[in-house]
Structures are given as C-alpha cells and as structure tokens.
C-alpha cells in the first residue's frame, strides 16, 4: 500500500516537474522573441553597396568650335566661324544648337547697278543661329597607319533657325551632312557641310528669292 502511494507521489512529482519545464520553456520562448528583431550578435563585415546609375558620369553633351568657308549667294565666299552644342539622345540621334558668323563680299553688280542698294559694312555682317536634329549613319572605325583605329561616324543633319543679314532677319532652313572622327573617347574632329536656305530680296531683281548659302567647316568638339 505504501509502495503504491510512493509510486503515485513520484508520478505526481514528475508530471508537475514536466509541466513546470514546459511552462518555463514557453515563458523563455516568449522572452526570446524580442531578440530576433534586435541586432545580430555577429555583424557581417560586408558593406552593402547599391549602384545608382545617376552617379555614373554621363557624357551626352558635345560642345565644339568650328571654322570654315561660307558662300553667301551672290556675295562671294568668306571665312565663317562659330560654336555648337549637341546633346546625344541615343547612339543614333542627336540635337544640336549652333551659332555662326561670316561677312559678305560685294556683289558683282553692286557698283554698276544704279537701282541696287549698296550694303554698308555692318549690313555685310551675317550671323545665324539654328537648332537641328542629326542622325548618325555608317558608324565604324577609320584606320590610320598600321596600328591605329579611330571611331568615326557620318551623320545627316537638318534644322531651322534664323539668319541676320543686311539688317534683316530671315527664317532659315539648314540641311547637310558631316563626319565625326573621335580621337579618344571624349575629343572629336568634325567636318561639316551645310546648306543654309532662306528667302532674300537682295538679288537685285526686287523679288524674294530662295537663296542657297553653302558652308563647309572643320572643327573640334568635346564630350562632357
């Protein structure tokens, strides 16, 4: 009888102990939970670094100067010089703003014709500005010598602008083509042929005639 009571007592104690252990564990687990959100005990020595594309130096602008010859219809050819700023939208397409200046010679008939107004020195100054859209065609490499290759591209370009000539502003359309040779990844040499087309009444017949003013220039430009 006594031994039965002993066994019962032992069983009761062990059950109570088990319950106590389980309760303790659950309490501990509840205590453990906040640790999961806190900082890890061992910190990895890895510095996370994400790449922001905006931080990469982009060189979509091209600025340059040029000099060449411009033929003003009926007014002879003279030196033209100017500057241009281009923005490359894609590898094929670019927009460009340009300014240029040249001077007109005397017309062949200027002194002999009585009814034609002679231009003063300031009126002989021609300056233009324009905005154009260009398209790169035939990109490739130009081989100079045995071991040198330079990137190059032909481009066609057209745009609109204004020409200030003989104290008058003329709406001007320009069309042309050019060649760009890159000396390295940010310096380029450029050759450019352009026709500046505008209506003018300076032809001596009193009418507004469309004039074609051809320009050939060479220049250097820098990508930035």
């Amino acid at each position, binding site marked *: 009888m006594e031994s039965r009571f002993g066994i019962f007592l032992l069983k009761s104690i062990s059950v109570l102990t088990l319950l106590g252990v389980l309760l303790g564990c659950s309490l501990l687990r509840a205590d453990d939970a906040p640790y999961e959100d806190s900082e890890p005990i061992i910190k990895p020595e890895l510095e996370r670094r994400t790449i922001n594309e905006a931080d990469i130096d982009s060189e979509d602008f091209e600025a340059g100067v040029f000099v060449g010859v411009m033929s003003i219809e009926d007014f002879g050819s003279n030196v033209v010089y100017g500057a241009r700023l281009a923005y490359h939208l894609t*590898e094929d397409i670019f927009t460009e703003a340009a300014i240029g200046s040249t001077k007109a010679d005397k017309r062949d008939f200027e002194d002999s014709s009585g009814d034609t107004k002679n231009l003063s020195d300031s009126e002989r100054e021609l300056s233009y500005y324009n905005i154009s859209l260009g398209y790169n065609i035939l990109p490739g490499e130009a081989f100079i010598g045995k071991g040198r290759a330079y990137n190059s591209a032909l481009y066609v370009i057209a745009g609109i602008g204004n020409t200030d000539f003989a104290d008058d502003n003329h709406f001007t359309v320009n069309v042309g083509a050019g060649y760009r040779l890159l000396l390295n990844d940010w310096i380029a040499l450029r050759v450019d042929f352009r026709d500046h087309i505008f209506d003018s009444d300076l032809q001596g017949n009193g009418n507004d005639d469309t004039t074609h003013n051809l320009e050939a220039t060479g220049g250097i430009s820098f990508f930035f």
Partner: protein
Amino acid sequence: MYLFLVTLMLLQCLATSTIAAEQHYKVMVDEAYLELHTGPGRGYPVSHVVDRGMEIEVIKRRTDWFMVRTEKGKEGWVKHADMELTLTPAGE
C-alpha cells in the same frame, strides 16, 4: 565672345573629367561572357570579351552605353541591356 564661350566649354570639360577620375563602380560579369565594343554604338566592332566572374569597372556613360575597364586594363563600351546582367558587390 566666342573666345569666352570656348574657354567656358574647355573649363567645363576639364571639370567633368576631374570629377570622373574620382571613383568608379565595380561590377561582376554574371553571364557566360560580356562583349566590349570599341565605341558607344552597335555599329562599332567587338574588341574584347570578359568572362563570367571577372570584375569590370564602370568609367562613364554615353546615351545607352557604358564605358568599362577590365581587370587587365582593357577598355570598351557595353550596352545598357548587357550591363543589367552584371552583379554589384552586394550580389544584386
């Protein structure tokens, strides 16, 4: 006036190239290979190929092309779409 403009442009160019020399991102090639073109355009030929696991340095960008430098010091241009197949140091 023109001279002033030219000087301004040259200064601008110098300023940007100085900034560019400071620090470059490095990425790892995660495709079988990565093609480096001689220029920033599809018409320019492929001059080098970088294998998987190699690290490349991103120097600059022009339109949709990135100029990169390999571990061996070779430079070339990589398409934007191809650059998306590289891993940053964070493994992204």
